[in-house]
């Protein structure tokens, strides 16, 4: 086993899972909604990036921007359909969950109808090649993935920490009525949350499509992975999601090397179920516990 390879794969996977899980986690904690349409956002962003690469340019920056922008728009669409009409209605959590599931079904079938079942490949946005540092080899793909997602994660976290909008989102996570009393509009803040998380998913879609193809149902696996990472990290916790992303990335890399690719999901699930049996609220619950 090559430790450099495992470490690099772990960090690559962790950064993508982190993007996906953080989106789900932030939406859950600020809007109280489980966004099952994240997979649709993912697939749509892949197609958005593909369209951009077909009609506008194959420059890496342009393609990434296309994916991120499509993701933000898809996030806004999901928010407009599943959150805005429902949030003050009775039984909101269940109904919004079902609404996002309906969007997932509608969306993926529309994509299938529109683009056909044939998969599409995105251009290599980071170019082909690799860097050698001592005995370690790192392909441009992986480095690009790590740098891009780390940059977006850091920007997002800094924005959440420093800006007024970020403070508003954090306030809304804690107490929506109190937030309204300090002039936070629930709807506009919700839409900005949806667009932000959509953009994160869009970036993840472009990055992951470097190795996989763009297809109407490409979003299911990332959705499931993002969700279980968010679940293991403790829904609503940024730190927990990041730690869980690292751990699950590590497990995936180790399993792939030691046992073989088909066991990845099984070991991951065994890990998650073990975590959840010990801490039903995920790893973040663990952190809070030790802090006390």
């Amino acid at each position, binding site marked *: 086993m090559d430790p450099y390879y495992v470490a690099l794969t772990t960090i690559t996977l962790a950064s993508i899972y982190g993007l996906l899980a953080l989106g789900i986690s932030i939406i859950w904690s600020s809007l109280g909604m489980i966004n099952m349409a994240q997979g649709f956002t993912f697939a749509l962003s892949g197609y958005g990036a593909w369209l951009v690469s077909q009609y506008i340019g194959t420059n890496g920056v342009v393609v990434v921007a296309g994916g991120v922008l499509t993701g933000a728009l898809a996030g806004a669409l999901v928010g407009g359909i599943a959150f805005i009409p429902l949030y003050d209605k009775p039984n909101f959590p269940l109904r919004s969950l079902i609404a996002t599931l309906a969007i997932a079904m509608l969306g993926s079938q529309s994509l299938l109808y529109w683009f056909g079942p044939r998969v599409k490949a995105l251009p290599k946005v980071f170019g082909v090649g690799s860097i050698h540092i001592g005995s370690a080899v790192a392909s441009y793909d992986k480095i690009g993935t790590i740098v891009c997602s780390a940059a977006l994660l850091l920007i997002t976290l800094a924005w959440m920490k420093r800006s007024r909008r970020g403070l508003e989102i954090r306030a809304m996570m804690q107490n929506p009525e109190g937030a309204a009393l300090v002039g936070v509009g629930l709807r506009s803040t919700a839409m900005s949350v949806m667009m932000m998380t959509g953009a994160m998913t869009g970036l993840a879609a472009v990055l992951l499509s470097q190795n996989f193809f763009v297809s109407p149902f490409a979003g299911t696996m990332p959705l499931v992975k993002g969700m279980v990472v968010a679940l293991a990290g403790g829904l609503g916790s940024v730190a927990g999601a990041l730690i869980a992303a690292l751990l699950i990335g590590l497990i995936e890399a180790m399993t792939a090397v030691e046992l073989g690719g088909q066991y990845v999901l099984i070991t991951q699930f065994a890990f998650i179920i073990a975590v*959840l049996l010990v801490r039903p609220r995920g790893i973040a619950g663990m952190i809070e516990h030790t802090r006390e």
Partner: protein
Amino acid sequence: MSTGQQSTPATPEIGLVGRSRLLPPLRAHGDRTWRRWRVPFTQRGALDYITAFNPISLVAERRIVDKRLLWWLAALLVLVIVPPLFGNDSFIGAGTTFAMFSAINIVWMLTIGTAGIFSLATLAVVGVGAYGTAYLSVYWGFPWWAMWIAGPFFGAGFGVLIALPAIRLEGFYYALLTVGVAELCRVWVVQSRTLGAANNGLYGADGFVPADMSTTGGITLGYFLALAMMVAALALYTYVNGQRLGRLLRAAPEKHEAFAEALGINYRAARIQVFLISSAALGFVGAFYATLLHGASPSLFTMDQLLLLLAMIVIGGIGTTEGAVAGTLIVVLLDKVFIGLGPLRLVLIGAIMLGTVLFLRGGIFGVAAQFKNWTAKRRSERRAVSRGKGGIVMPEEATEIHDKQNIAIGLFQLRLRGELKALVNDALIEEHRTTPRSRRSDNLERVLNYFRMAPMAEKYGVLMVKPFAEYRIVAISGRRGVPPRAVDDQMFTTPEDADHGVFLKRVQDLMES
């Protein structure tokens, strides 16, 4: 009961006793229900009757409290007769799909509704049952009846596995996990060579259709068996809900578990028990699926199939069996009728599902209740806003007032106020101020009598702050131990002045009403 055995007690004869009508006692008079027959060997019955006088026409009426059983019987009759008689093979095949999915959804209701476990791994359990029994048949040569016996064991075994996290996880956390479990199963069967990764499914299992039966005969047999399975699922649902287990769980609904726990109800064990029962039932459905299609396919584990199943119960309304069956009917019909549209028909189903969840609270079977709720809310808001418009009772409100006498009293008060208002003028007020109490005119006395009739709460009174020097007007609270409150800061020097002050206030209130 004297009239109990008569076959037509609906409208007893109405005789006259003096000037009032005689209303003879009815069977199970009041709000109590009675029943004609009961299920043999049990204390239970179906079709509860209620006998009561119609509040408006005063005619004795007998009605069935819950007519759903009759609807079910009628629907089942239609299902038994229509497809085999009038349908072609593909129509009967669609009917089989419908009956099988109905059975799955009814059992799913048991998990979601009764056990309160929001599991999305329902189809995965069916899939495990189908794959497990198909495996036994393909590799070990199990015949179809042995597969049916083995199915529940696979279902229950898988149920134990996925019930483990359900002990600790709540609501949506568990829902998310089960989606992942289904995906895990799909990836597993797609990759495993023993489970038919190459053939896109594990096929070659034994079927229940005898070899010498015609194609149509086989399809019809499948249909009736599926229908029987649906009825069995209904029976299971009713049985679990009606027995101790279901009642324990009804005492421990979501977010109120602590109360049930305080009463000594072990709701967790009960939930897991129901979950395992429904898993075993789903395992049987899986075995049936395997014997019907001679194998199992990975599509059982896909997200899309799961969403289709969810669309069924969402459209029908989560929480009721009739909703589950009706939703299944709608979705299966759409799916089969518009099969030429390809993916577009799934878009259509998704759109209907989205519309249902956005606008309806409880699916199509909740529309009536939702509409009633909405009008009631509207009405009560309007009434709260327009309170104090006098005693007029609108006809639609009259049905909600229990004591009908209050309607008449309200109307009388309204008319009385109208007449008294006409009497009040400056001369009358002047008369009250100047004339001694014993020599008041008839009109003034009428007005005063009305004032005296007012209920004690909020009635005005005179408070003596200092004898012969300071008097104030107060409003009496009407409740024992609660002192009167000051009405305003006017001060009077004699009791007569204060008395007149009260009079003026009352007159003002009367004129404003």
